[in-house]
């Protein structure tokens, strides 16, 4: 069950990255044709992100301590000391960025050049931060594996 929870939060993270990337590309080519889709996707991103965040939060508080002990005893303690510690705090900024995206994207991105620019910036920041989160998660998982292999 805990592995399913873990993988679900990863998949939801990837989904929110892909949806933000879609918003970015659509905003670059904003027109009357894709405005509704941009707005829909910009609302989809925070929903997916919030569900993933809550699942990850539950896992972090209740299930991660066992993995943390393995990591800290193994050859890759930095997987927790640096990668998990930064991830658990950077993800908050990601959550806020996704919450902000629909607020910005609700403007008329065809006529409002500045709103389009801001939508591009926010969606790009979501994609980049999301990719960092995915990478850090990979290192943390590897830290558990390295810890198990060492014992």
């Amino acid at each position, binding site marked *: 069950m805990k592995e399913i929870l873990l993988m679900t939060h990863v998949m939801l993270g990837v989904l929110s990255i892909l949806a933000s990337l879609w918003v970015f590309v659509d905003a670059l080519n904003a027109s009357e044709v894709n405005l509704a889709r941009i707005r829909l996707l910009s609302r989809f991103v925070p929903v997916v992100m919030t569900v993933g965040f809550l699942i990850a939060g539950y896992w972090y508080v209740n299930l991660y301590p066992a993995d943390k002990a393995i990591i800290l005893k193994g050859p890759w303690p930095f997987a927790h000391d640096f990668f998990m510690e930064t991830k658990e705090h950077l993800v908050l900024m990601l*959550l806020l960025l996704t919450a902000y995206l629909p607020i910005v994207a609700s403007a008329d991105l065809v006529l*409002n050049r500045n709103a389009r*620019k801001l939508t591009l910036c926010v969606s790009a920041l979501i994609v980049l931060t999301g990719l960092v989160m995915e990478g850090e998660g990979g290192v943390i998982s590897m830290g558990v594996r390295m810890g198990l292999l060492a014992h």
Partner: protein
Amino acid sequence: MENSRFSNNATAFGISLVVASIANALLVAAKEKSPKVLAFMKGLTGHHWITHCTVIVLLFVIFGWVLSRANGGKGIHVTPATLIGTIVGGVILSAIVIVGFYLIVG
């Protein structure tokens, strides 16, 4: 006809996003350097990270709401370039502070 202004909410919550991001970074440093702060945060909800998230999310929501109602409901006036630069710069700076803290101090 082109309209380049931001909505009231876009400006208010954009500023709130920056403030919350910076507060997030500062709270990381405070709780990691002060066992009393860490213990207090843990005591509030049972886990320091839950308290941390709750504080930052509430800060974002409440501060954004307050700013959107400033000036008799007219909101805060910030030029588009300033808002975009502040948001991008603020988020990146906050991330650098968090990463830098754990690289150097943590």
